[in-house]
Every structure is written in C-alpha cells, then in structure tokens.
C-alpha cells in the first residue's frame, strides 16, 4: 500500500473507539495523536497511564481487553529520552491501539499496569532489565533476561553493541 501523510488532528480521529473513550473520560490526558500506516498512536500523560489502561480495558462498547505488547524506545540523546509503548487489542472488536508515554532520562519511572493486566508482569520486567525504566507498584521488579548482578541496561542507545563495556 502506498504511503499517505499521517493525520495528527484529534478531531479527525475521534471516530476511533479508543480515542473517543479517552477523550470522553478525561480529554487532558491525551497529549497528542497520530494516525500513520493504518495504526493509531495516542500519547498519554505519564501519571494517568494506569487509569487510562483500566478505562480502555473496561470500555463498554469496545473493550481493549488484551495487552499484546509492552516495550520501550530510547531516543538518546534527545529529551524526554524514553518512550514506553503499549500495544492493546480488543478481542471482541479486533481493534488495535498504541499508547505511548514519554519519560525523562534522569530517573525514568512509571506506574505499573500489572493490576490492569497481569500479563504486563514479564514485559515490565523486561523493560526494567534492558532499559532501566522503573515500574512503581510492580510485584516482582527483578532482572529477567540478564544475570542478577549485571551492570547497565543493554538496550539503551549509549550501551555499545560490540566490544567491552
């Protein structure tokens, strides 16, 4: 499919069930939106992420009840450095949405969504292990891939790909 320019206007995208529900709940948590390559991205206020996820999961007309994926992107050296990315799927309606939260590089921390989806447990541990983002309220925030005594967070952009650390 040929590329078309992305849409970033909230008014034009309000027909999407996820954006409609979030705006109906609290329009101030939606910081920006982008519809690009047939995927909707919503930037959500950092402090509201757990509630926003719970609202979307319990939405009556289109419940986003399945957390597909949770990961992080490091935009070093620009600030805010980290973007935590949530991919949600509505199993009854087969709709998808991507939520994003921007975090500062100094001591990145965000509220855990394990209380909304227990499946976030491993994903958040992975992001903590490989990016060093802390999830407050996580039941067992330990390294998952790397050994417990490892120093550094390998997927950060300032961590070298080859050679010695």
């Amino acid at each position, binding site marked *: *499919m*040929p*590329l078309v320019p*992305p849409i970033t206007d909230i008014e034009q995208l309000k027909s999407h069930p996820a954006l409609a529900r979030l705006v109906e709940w609290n329009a101030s948590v939606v910081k920006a939106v982008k519809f*690009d*390559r*047939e*995927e909707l*991205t919503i930037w959500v206020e950092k402090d509201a992420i757990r509630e926003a996820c719970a609202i979307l999961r319990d939405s009556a007309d289109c419940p986003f*009840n*399945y*957390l*597909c*994926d949770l*990961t992080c*992107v*490091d935009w070093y050296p620009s600030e805010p450095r980290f973007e935590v*990315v949530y*991919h949600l*799927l509505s*199993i009854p309606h*087969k709709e*998808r949405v*991507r939520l994003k939260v921007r975090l500062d590089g100094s001591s990145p921390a965000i509220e855990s969504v394990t209380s909304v*989806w*227990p*499946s976030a*447990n*491993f994903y958040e541990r992975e992001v903590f292990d*490989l990016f060093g983002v802390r999830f407050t309220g996580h039941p067992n925030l330990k*390294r*998952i*891939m*790397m*050994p*417990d*005594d490892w120093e550094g967070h*390998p*997927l950060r952009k300032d*961590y070298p*790909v*080859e050679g010695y650390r």
Partner: protein
Amino acid sequence: MTQFPATVAEPGQEGTLILNMGPQHPSTHGVLRLVVEIEGETIVRLRPEIGYLHTGIEKTCEAKFYQQVVPLTDRIDYLCPMTNNLAYCLAVERLLGLEIPPKAQWMRVLMNELTRINSHLVWLGSSAMDLGAMTVFLYCFREREDVLRFYEMVSGQRMMSSYFRIGGLALEPPLGFFEKVKKFADRFPGNVDEYEGLLTGNPIFTMRTKGVARLSAEDAIALGAGGPTLRASGVDIDLRRDAPYTGYENFKFKVPIRSEGDVFARYVCRVEELRESIGIVQQALAGMPEGPIKADAPKIVLPDREKMKTQMEALIYHFKIITEGFGVPAGEVYQAVESPRGEMGYYVVSDGTAKPYRVHMRGPSFANLQALAKMCEGGLIADVVAAIGSIDVILGDVDR
C-alpha cells in the same frame, strides 16, 4: 562472589519444599528453569526463571541494515523460521509502502502453512513423548522431514531458511516443487488420522490430559496467552481471519475452538489446525498465480543475477544496496501475524536511515509462559510436564 539463593530449601513451617526443575531437564523443551514450591505432590507456587538463551537479538538488529536482519529473525523462534521472516518483512514493507506481487504473496501463504505443519508436528511428537508415547514422535518426525526437504528445495537450508525477503522472495521455487508439495498434501490427512489413532482414544493419553492444567477464558486473556492456548479456552481469535495479511483473505479455513481449556483441548485444537493448514496448502497450490516473485523496486530489492552480469544499472543498484542499504521513511509499525504459538508481533521503528532504530519482537511463547503458573498451581507435580508440553514453549522465542 555472588550469593545464589538455595535451590532446595528445608521444609518450612508450612511443610512446603522448593524444587528446582531445569534448566537442563528433558521435558522443558530447551533451557527453561521452573522453581516449584510443593506441598506433598501438590504445587503451591510455580515461577518460571528465563534468560538462559538471551542472545540480544534486539540489540544486534539496531547495528544491521534492514535486509541483514532477516537471517536474525530465523533464529528467534527456530521451529517456525518463515513465520518470523514474514512478520519482519511485512513490517518493513509497510514502513516502505511497498506492494508485493500476487505470486510472492501466495508462496508466502503456502510456505507459512507448511511451517505451521512443521512446528505442530514437532510439538505433537515431543509433547506426546513427554507423556510416554514414543511412536507418535517417530511418525511426526517422518512427516516433518518432508517439510524440511521443501524448505531445502526453495531456500537451500533445512531450518534457518531466510526465504522471505523485503519485497518478495529470495528465489523462484525450483522445477517440480509444486508437484512434490501436492503429493505430500494429498497424503498428509491420512498421516494425521494415524497420529489421532494413536492418541485421541488412547486411555493413557486421555487420562494424562483431560481436565489437566485448566485455564479459563478470562485468565487466558488477562495473562496474555495466545494461539491454540487461547482458542482451547474458548476465545475466538485468529489473526489470519480477523486481520488478514499477505493475502489470507483469499483462503477459506475454519478456526478450531474448544471450551474446556485443558491439555486435551489444546491437543485437539492443534491437530485440527494441522488439517486446516493442509487445506490452505491445497488451495494455494490450486490457485498459485503466475508472475514475478519480487516487487518492482530496484532500490530495495536485489536484482537478478543474470541482469547484474549484463546491465550496468543493475550492478550499481546491487552494489548500493549491499554497501549502503536502503533508507526507510521514518515511522513505526506493529505487524502481528498468527504464528503456530499465537500472536507474533514485530514492532519496527525507523528514523529514516538504513538501519532500524528499534526492532522489538513480541514472542508468543513469552506470553504463554506467564499462563503456566496459573495452569499448574493447585495441580500435581507430574502434570507440569503435560502443561509445559501443551503451551508449546520455544525458549529461543522467550529469551530472544
């Protein structure tokens, strides 16, 4: 000196014992370590410990050109290399806005379904062997060998095929390939009957699997289980039907659903999927279109060998792609495909250069493994083996 926690604890006040299962254990299907807390023979708590196979593929991808990532994706879920290739290639093609010719799409469907058969056969053989049925293992590997020969015919490799490339396929399928696949597809339903004859009515097998490691639909969704694990709990989802990619909308197939949510239901779902997959293979063979196997995009797709030897332009494009790669417009794509184990998602972020800024793989085994504790807790220790077999965990996919 690092302090390691004691793996086998003294019986505590509650009378529980901590038992360490794996990472070297024949029924954990790789290097999976389970820390199991038991009271008598009943499991109180179960915690998977992973990371023994972590190879940092996501980090390596960031240092490669887009086309160089394809062979890395084979090595993630090594039982379904073509599904990994497909998910990655589709993601990059969507970033580029590239159209794929129909023959390449149909070949992708054909090979993808053969991959599903390959993966399910390994699962059926090994999980039945865990429960003591040795013959099924030998039968399954007999048919798997045929599928691996098809891999070798098209790509020259039996396992790490890297057959799908960004913009199409690596090579034209060789002469006689479709006839051989047709012969296999005609014979295969009889083979599935053979496996079912050994297992479905077998009293030992049914007693070991029925009512074991139950998972309700709500728990399966909350814990992020996918694929046959989710469908055996009664959740009706299959990405090939619900969000068709690479031309799946042209094929007719049923999605097997069971509601029991136990090991036997997962077995029935997968065996039914074997039959549906061979049906899709038959449809793909019958309707295979003619035409090119690569997209018309000389700056992205490598030129044919013959053209390189006769045309200056093709030689230049080849040199440029190999040495500089190709730029991909900035953006991001999450491409999910239905792998034999569930939703396999590739999240590719581009910053406009020739190397991916970030590649993240959503492994279905990683998600399914979280559901293992819920299935096993409260059950017997001997059923852990049946439960691990039933979620079909691939540790390359878990640890990446």
